């Protein structure tokens, strides 16, 4: 895959939303016109074939009865226009994809564009940090770009204005604010972009402003604890590859906590039972089941109080400091034993938002020598972390009328601040409020000025993705709306001329070029870095000195935390929705939560024990009341939840948002409290009451037990070490009536999935959606069990429902050699290819659904309706190489056949043989754990051949003799 530098001159002007129909593939409306596709980048009206199209459908409806029409010769051939580019552009060849490197939410990635239209995100495997890992939010970001709810340009008091007028008026107001002697605040989220930070510093200087970083859910407790412990206001950097033992207290590091793609990549690299280093051991102590907890070797369902008690116990055992624990002695001694055996090679982490707990955790890590081995604390000028206390003070200051102007960049405190009412009334006392929102949100509607900002893929920026690696953000499309990069707005307010691109380039040549080596000029360095997307440099950050400290007093403070009576209300983030800033993305809303398998909603998680005692069923609408907040949501009975804990996800209950996110669920940020110097995410207590109503949840899986069936095969590391075939001894005796009649030469495609490496993160599902134009069906249709995902992740529980073991199993079309679906289709819409793929021919399908019934894996998906493709802007994301499917058609995993064809063709064009790894499927590419392997099983040296030959390899439902081409490797737990 080749990467090209972004050509700044990608078209004469932007389309500004004047889209046209007919540039995507569609089985029924069969028009794809490469020139029409590129229309977005040129001027001029383009009225396609609408009249002719209706004629065509008329003919279709009339069917055979109008066949007499040609007799009279009056039929006309539908006129299709072919509109070329106006100007020459050597980099864009219609039908050939270009790839550009960029970054989204701190993850380096590659953006695939077709005819200059971003359509797909893949990980950038040049990055030393993420090594190609990419999460579901990154995958889905390309759809957010085409969000038709985005604002069309700057507004003042709701009225659209020109940028010049906007700049002038805002400048005047800011000047007045500066002169008023009151505070000017610029509020951003945590930033790790060196050039943005530099620019903001200049801005604060120019306007005497104060920069405050605010995150809805912050890592402030950890940052503050590091300040206390090591005098370093920085987050921890973890290296999971070096950890033999990982003890996590509630931290969902594989899902929502920290850089989960990187964490997953590193974590999974130590989960290979056949590696010489052996497997890492993962112990998770948490009150509610998280994605990370579901992957743990040992998982203990403990209340928040018990978790903290265990932390104190571990501290006491290791160092003798603090009051020690009062319960759970066995768990404490187990952890201590593991930690002592793996000094310097373990990790203790916690997501606790209490600063004192984090100090104790620091001390534990220090005591077992983990610093500068598995953990480092790196100070950097290029990173600014969120500060709960500063923002709390800022709100108070606003409330007191001491703030004259406030600029909200990419933050939405009116939604995600724990006391949004207080914030709203405070903000009303600020005379000049500026928002930089892309589309209206709870905060932007409070602002007088909205300096509509660009989407990341229309933006120049950089970011520090690790302590030593920089990643580029470059625009891959002209702004679709009349928005502007927020950095350029700041520049304009400062009276600076030029673009942010130029600003950044000069910043780079000043600050980073000297740190590089091997480049003749700063421009060479810039071009190479931009081409690769990432660059590693020394001296970007500096290690804090790890001095010894005594944690006794902090431990005492932890022990003295008071807990109210009632249910402990714990908040958490869902893997897809997280803080809710991307809540208007339908792909993310429809992505099933890896644990609950629920979509389109948040809900109150209760433990099976509590549910039994109070006769609550999944779907019962309950009211959860804390001291000053209450939500009414359906309940979900979730195994692995602590009895006196209930959990609600944040990210829902958006009141001002696009039509997708609006009024889905309820806002749980209000259960946050500001306490003990930080925002506490689990400090609320309350009561639960049934309302008597019922609201079925849109879950993609409702039966959670394997019923003792041989579906996920698993074993323990101890057994595996003795016998690599452990857990995989069963071998079905297969009998064929017919002699084999089909050659298996040439390429024979096969896939293998390592269940030990699959964490269930679901990044693959979004990747598949984007690659294959999979329809979004909405909440009701998911509740009707009609989701369209070609790839799903089955999640099964085993054992005690309070401490269940969890299994994740990606399930997709198994491409059976003896496929039961193929025999039964009357019209040959699904048949086998010579290279071993179960083909589905959409245009031949009449929709009997017989194939889906006869599929033992139930992976076929039927188009029950014509799913909504009316949002023409959102249709820009469609992959032009894959037909969209209309109603009445069966679809399923095609093994990314378009990628296979493209890979083969590429090799042929280059007059060479296909190499292993030339073709990567969408799910495989996006898997941060590298758990999916695909290739030609006839190639003996390929990775897939090794996987197929593994002792752990098996196929699901082998005894049916359908001979799947997708196989699995047994799950190994380190027990």
């Amino acid at each position, binding site marked *: 895959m080749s990467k090209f530098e972004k050509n700044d001159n990608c078209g004469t002007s932007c389309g500004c939303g004047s889209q046209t129909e007919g540039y995507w593939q569609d089985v029924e409306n069969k028009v794809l016109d490469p020139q029409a596709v590129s229309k977005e980048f040129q001027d001029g009206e383009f009225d396609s074939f609408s009249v002719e199209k209706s004629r065509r459908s008329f003919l279709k409806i009339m069917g055979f009865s109008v066949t007499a029409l040609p007799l009279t010769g009056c039929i006309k051939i539908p006129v299709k226009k072919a509109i070329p580019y106006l100007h020459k552009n050597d980099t864009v060849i219609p039908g050939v994809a270009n790839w550009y490197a960029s970054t989204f939410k701190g993850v380096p990635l590659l953006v695939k564009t077709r005819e200059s239209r971003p359509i797909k995100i893949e990980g950038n495997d040049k990055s030393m940090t993420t090594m190609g890992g990419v999460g579901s939010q990154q995958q889905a970001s390309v759809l957010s770009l085409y969000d038709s709810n985005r604002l069309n340009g700057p507004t003042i008091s709701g009225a659209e204005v020109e940028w010049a007028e906007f700049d002038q008026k805002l400048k005047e107001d800011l000047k007045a604010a500066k002169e008023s002697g009151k505070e000017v605040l610029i509020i951003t989220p945590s930033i790790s972009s060196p050039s943005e930070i530099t620019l903001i510093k200049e801005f604060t200087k120019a306007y005497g402003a104060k920069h405050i970083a605010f995150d809805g859910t912050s890592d402030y407790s950890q940052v503050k604890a590091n300040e206390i412990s090591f005098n370093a206001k920085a987050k921890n950097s973890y290296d999971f590859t070096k950890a033999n033992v990982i003890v996590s207290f509630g931290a969902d590091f594989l899902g929502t906590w920290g850089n989960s793609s990187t964490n997953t990549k590193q974590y999974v690299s130590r989960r290979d039972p056949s590696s010489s280093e052996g497997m890492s051991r993962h112990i998770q102590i948490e009150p509610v089941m998280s994605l990370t907890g579901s992957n743990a070797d040992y998982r203990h369902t403990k209340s928040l109080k018990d978790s903290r008690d265990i932390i104190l116990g571990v501290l006491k055992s290791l160092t003798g400091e603090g009051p020690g624990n009062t319960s759970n002695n066995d768990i404490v001694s187990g952890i201590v034993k593991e930690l002592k055996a793996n000094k310097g090679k373990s990790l203790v982490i916690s997501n606790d938002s209490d600063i004192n707990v984090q100090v104790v955790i620091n001390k534990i890590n220090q005591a077992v020598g983990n610093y500068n081995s598995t953990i480092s604390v790196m100070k950097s000028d290029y990173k600014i972390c969120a500060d709960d206390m500063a923002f709390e003070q800022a709100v108070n200051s606003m409330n007191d009328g001491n703030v004259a102007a406030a600029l909200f960049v990419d933050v939405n405190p009116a939604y995600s601040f724990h006391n949004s009412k207080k914030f709203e009334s405070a903000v009303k006392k600020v005379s000049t409020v500026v928002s930089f929102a892309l589309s209206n949100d709870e905060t932007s509607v409070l602002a007088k000025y909205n300096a509509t900002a660009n989407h990341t893929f229309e933006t120049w920026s950089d970011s520090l993705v690790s302590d030593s690696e920089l990643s580029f953000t470059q625009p891959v499309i002209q702004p679709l709306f009349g928005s502007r990069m927020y950095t350029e707005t700041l520049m304009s307010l400062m009276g600076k001329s030029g673009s942010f691109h130029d600003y950044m380039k000069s910043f780079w040549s000043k600050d980073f070029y000297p740190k590089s080596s091997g480049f003749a000029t700063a421009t060479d360095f810039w071009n190479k870095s931009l081409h690769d997307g990432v660059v590693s440099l020394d001296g970007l950050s500096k290690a804090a000195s790890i001095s010894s400290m005594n944690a006794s007093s902090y431990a005492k403070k932890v022990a003295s935390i008071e807990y109210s009576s009632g249910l402990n209300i714990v908040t958490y983030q869902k893997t897809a929705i997280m803080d809710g800033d991307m809540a208007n993305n339908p792909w993310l809303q429809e992505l099933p939560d890896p644990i609950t398998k629920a979509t389109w909603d948040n809900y109150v998680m209760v433990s099976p024990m509590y549910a039994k005692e109070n006769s609550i069923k999944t779907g019962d609408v309950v009211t959860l009341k804390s001291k000053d907040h209450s939500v009414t949501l359906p309940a979900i009975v979730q195994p692995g939840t602590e009895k006196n804990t209930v959990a609600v996800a944040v990210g829902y209950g958006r009141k001002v948002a696009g039509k997708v996110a609006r009024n889905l669920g309820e806002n749980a940020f209000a259960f946050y409290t500001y306490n003990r110097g930080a925002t506490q995410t689990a400090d609320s207590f309350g009561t639960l009451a049934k309302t008597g109503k019922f609201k079925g949840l849109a879950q993609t899986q409702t039966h959670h037990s394997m019923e003792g069936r041989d579906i996920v095969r698993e074993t323990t590391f101890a057994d595996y070490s003795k016998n690599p075939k452990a857990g995989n001894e069963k071998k079905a005796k297969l009998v064929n009536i*017919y002699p*084999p009649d089909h050659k298996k030469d040439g390429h024979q495609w096969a896939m293998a999935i390592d269940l030990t490496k699959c964490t269930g993160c679901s990044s693959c599902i979004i990747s598949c959606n984007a690659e294959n134009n999979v329809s979004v069906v909405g909440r009701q249709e998911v509740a009707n069990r009609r989701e369209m995902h070609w790839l799903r992740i089955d999640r099964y529980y085993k054992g005690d429902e309070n401490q269940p073991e969890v299994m994740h199993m990606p399930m997709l079309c198994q491409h059976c*050699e003896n*496929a039961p679906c*193929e025999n039964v289709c009357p019209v*040959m819409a699904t048949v*086998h290819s010579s290279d071993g793929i179960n083909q589905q021919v959409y245009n031949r399908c009449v929709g009997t659904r017989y194939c889906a019934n006869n599929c033992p894996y139930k992976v076929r998906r039927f188009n029950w309706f014509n799913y909504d493709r009316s949002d023409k802007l959102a249709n820009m994301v469609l992959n032009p190489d894959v037909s969209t499917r209309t109603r009445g058609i069966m679809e399923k995993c095609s093994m990314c056949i378009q990628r296979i064809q493209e890979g083969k063709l590429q090799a042929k064009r280059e007059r060479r043989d296909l190499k292993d790894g030339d073709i990567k499927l969408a799910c495989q590419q996006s898997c941060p754990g590298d758990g999916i392997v695909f290739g030609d099983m006839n190639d003996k040296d390929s990775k897939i051949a090794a996987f197929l030959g593994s002792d752990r390899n098996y196929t699901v439902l082998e005894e049916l003799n359908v001979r799947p081409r997708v196989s699995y490797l047994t799950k190994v737990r380190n027990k």
Partner: protein
Amino acid sequence: MKKDYVIATFECDEKVLHATEKVVAKNIDIYDIYTPFPVHGLDEAMGIKRSILPYVTLLAGLTGMILAFSFQMWVFNISWPVNFGGKPFMSVPSFLPITFEFTVLLGAHTTVAAFLAINKLFPGKQPTIIDPAQTEDKFIMAIDKEKANVDDLTNLLKEQGAVQVEVQNLDLSI
């Protein structure tokens, strides 16, 4: 083609059967007997040749069978071989249901067509009806006038219980 026929009307199936036996015994050819329902043994008594319909059925059925089987075989082995769920191209069991059904289909419809053709029955045909009651409760015997002595025949038929015997000029070929 009108001709003179001796037309005898009976009111009882037994009687017309006996009469037929008597007439045939006298070596007189009966042109036809029109009855409201099939009178058992009447066709044998009249000496009607066995129907060729069974042979038509056999031939058509065999044709259907060979056509259906060879077509399926040709499609999957010669015209466009396709791999369906790993089954061999020549998977005979799969071809049997359609072969059977097509055998029956062609056999049945060809036989019906042959039946209609032999008896010259077709929609809209206007047959010669001697007495409208011949499809209700009258049994009507028609004998070519030239094939027998009308008076003797009349007597014989009256003797056998014919309620009426007369000579009519009719076109019975339709």
